[in-house]
């Protein structure tokens, strides 16, 4: 009788001498189990990572810090949610005004993968902001801001690897926010709520066009005069000292400032935020009011009295002849009545205010809208109201509900423009003659106000000499800005 041995240990095939299949399986099992566990672990890790990533997220404001009463960049990112829709509801009301809803709707491209919705939104002084990103019936993400999170102080952005050094540089009241180069807005409207941008050369450098756009939009940009090689395009901008540019300025940080984490020089910004607002308000006030072409009152009076007297007399005379004559007068009057209709029921007038310095300016479009019948006026582009009112922004259009005979004035998003030659020449030739006092008061000594149709150029006396390299990127910054929006017919 053969000895009893455990299967697979010593029992071999009598023909080949190889271990039997069962034995091979048992020997291979640990390896296979280990492999399967590894694959399972990888799958779980991958799935966990996928689950951990939100399907949609929203970034409101520069570096997630929204500023009330300013244009703010809004970026929504959706993953694998074709046709997702961003909906925001802003309550711009108050205790006296009650609820003033402003609604935003923007759609992502109807495609898979990662899709972005980028827009610049005029955030009012809100009581409540709520938002959600939805795809059909599903809500992918949602959130909101309450009144306690409202802050209308402009941002002081610090792009630094050691931001704590600069915490006291802008004063105790300043709203200092640490940002990275990737957080910085690329369009001028995104810089509306920013007062200063400080780069000390210790973090990754942003593109020079972004920095120039920031300065032109009214930001005090502080750059190192010396820095690593990545900062070379930026240090060249301040190689010849501080200079005004557009509505802002480019200033260098001295070695002493960099070492101490303090700003030694006074701000050289051409226009402060309040001055920019005052210029826009004055430009809006100077905008011609939209008008309707009503029939002259005298003509209406003559027609009404003549018609009434004639019809009454013919009916008083009576009889078939009088009745027929009155009927003819009625028919004639009915035919003539459409001539009293105004040709344009929704007249608009447009203009702009441009604050310029050193060849670059920031332009704010202005539009006055009037509406004879009650309803909503549609404007191409996003516009902000000068006073809190109901508004809607739908896929790049502004919806302005107005009562019968209502009118309002709106402002467009700031865009960077270059100063054309004819304005430079007019600057010296015509000066500020004929400009409204409210605008002239905003221009410092040596500056001028120039009018081109309904566009007011407030040209600051160029302080400092802009580096030659900056002149190259100014053009790029201007090209980056969206084309100024034209809204409907211009009278």
């Amino acid at each position: 009788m053969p000895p009893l041995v455990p299967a697979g240990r010593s029992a071999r095939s009598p023909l080949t001498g190889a271990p039997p299949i069962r034995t091979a399986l048992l020997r291979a099992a640990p390896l296979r189990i280990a492999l399967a566990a590894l694959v399972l672990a990888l799958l779980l890790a991958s799935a966990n990572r996928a689950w951990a990533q939100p399907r949609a997220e929203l970034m409101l404001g520069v570096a997630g810090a929204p500023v009330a009463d300013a244009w703010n960049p809004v970026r929504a990112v959706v993953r694998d949610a074709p046709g997702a829709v961003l909906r925001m509801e802003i309550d711009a009301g108050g205790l006296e005004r009650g609820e003033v809803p402003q609604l935003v709707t923007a759609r992502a491209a109807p495609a898979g993968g990662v899709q972005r919705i980028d827009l610049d939104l005029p955030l009012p002084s809100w009581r409540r902001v709520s938002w959600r990103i939805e795809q059909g019936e599903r809500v992918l993400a949602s959130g909101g801001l309450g009144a306690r999170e409202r802050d209308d102080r402009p941002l002081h952005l610090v792009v630094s690897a050691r931001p704590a050094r600069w915490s006291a540089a802008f004063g105790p009241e300043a709203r200092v926010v640490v940002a990275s180069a990737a957080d910085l807005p690329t369009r001028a409207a995104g810089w509306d709520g920013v007062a200063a941008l400080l780069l000390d050369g210790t973090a990754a450098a942003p593109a020079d066009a972004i920095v120039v756009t920031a300065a032109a939009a009214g930001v005090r940009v502080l750059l190192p005069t010396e820095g690593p090689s990545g900062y070379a395009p930026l240090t060249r901008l301040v190689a010849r000292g501080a200079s005004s540019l557009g509505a802002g300025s480019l200033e260098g940080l001295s070695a002493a400032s960099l070492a101490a984490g303090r700003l030694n020089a006074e701000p050289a910004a051409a226009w402060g935020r309040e001055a920019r607002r005052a210029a826009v308000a004055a430009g809006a006030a100077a905008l011609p009011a939209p008008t309707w072409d009503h029939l002259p009152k005298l003509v209406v009076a003559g027609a009404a009295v003549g018609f009434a007297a004639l019809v009454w007399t013919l009916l008083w005379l009576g009889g078939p002849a009088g009745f027929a004559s009155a009927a003819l007068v009625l028919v004639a009057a009915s035919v003539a009545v459409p001539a009293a209709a105004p040709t344009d029921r929704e007249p608009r007038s447009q203009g702009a205010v441009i604050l310029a310095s050193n060849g670059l300016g920031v332009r704010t479009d202005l539009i006055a809208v009037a509406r004879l019948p009650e309803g909503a006026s549609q404007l191409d582009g996003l516009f902000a109201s000068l006073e809190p009112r109901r508004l809607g922004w739908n896929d790049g259009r502004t919806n302005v509900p107005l009562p019968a005979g209502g009118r309002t004035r709106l402002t467009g998003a700031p865009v960077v423009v270059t100063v054309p030659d004819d304005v430079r020449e007019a600057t010296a030739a015509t000066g500020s003659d004929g400009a409204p006092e409210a605008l002239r008061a905003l221009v410092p000594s040596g500056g001028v106000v120039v009018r081109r149709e309904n566009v007011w150029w407030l040209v600051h006396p160029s302080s400092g000499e802009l580096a030659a390299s900056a002149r190259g990127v100014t053009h790029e910054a201007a090209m980056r800005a969206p084309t100024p929006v034209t809204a409907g017919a211009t009278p």
Partner: protein
Amino acid sequence: MTPPTVARGLPRADAGLALLLAAIALVLVGAWPERADLANASWYPVAVVRTGGLLLLGWLAGSTVEPSRAARRAALLRIAVASVATAPLEALAFVGTAPSASLAWALFAPLPLAISGYGAAWTLSTVLRRVRLGWALPLASPLVAAGLAWLDLQIGPPLWLPWLVPAFPSLAAAAVNLSGAVVTATLASGVSAGRRASA
């Protein structure tokens, strides 16, 4: 100057129509904007004056109705003529104002409303006379009018109020006023009486 006699039952202009035309023309001219930057809102007062004036004409005619069938028919015709004669003035105000309202409704809604008013006032005066309270008509008439206005305010879409009806077209108002106008015209012109007589 004596006007020619009425031929073939055609109504003749009277003081009521003169007053209505003058009031509408006056309001139209007064409300028409003097400057191009002012919005034209002349239709709103003109529509109220025309609708209210026609309703008042109908109510007064119904309150002082004469017993003869011909007189009632003439009164209804006068209301219809007044409605047509004043329509171009309201149309002029309407196209100048360009409101978010219906021109057809604004022009045609006041006529059935005025005839219904005639019918309501006629019914009231007839009932009061039947119960020998005809002397109370000057008091009852404004009271009933006020009661109807209060009722209209309570029941949602405006049916009779002349300052609301032109700007708020509704199926309910059309149905109520057209039904009232048809019933009034049928009874006032004596169709039912004629049928009874022929039977």
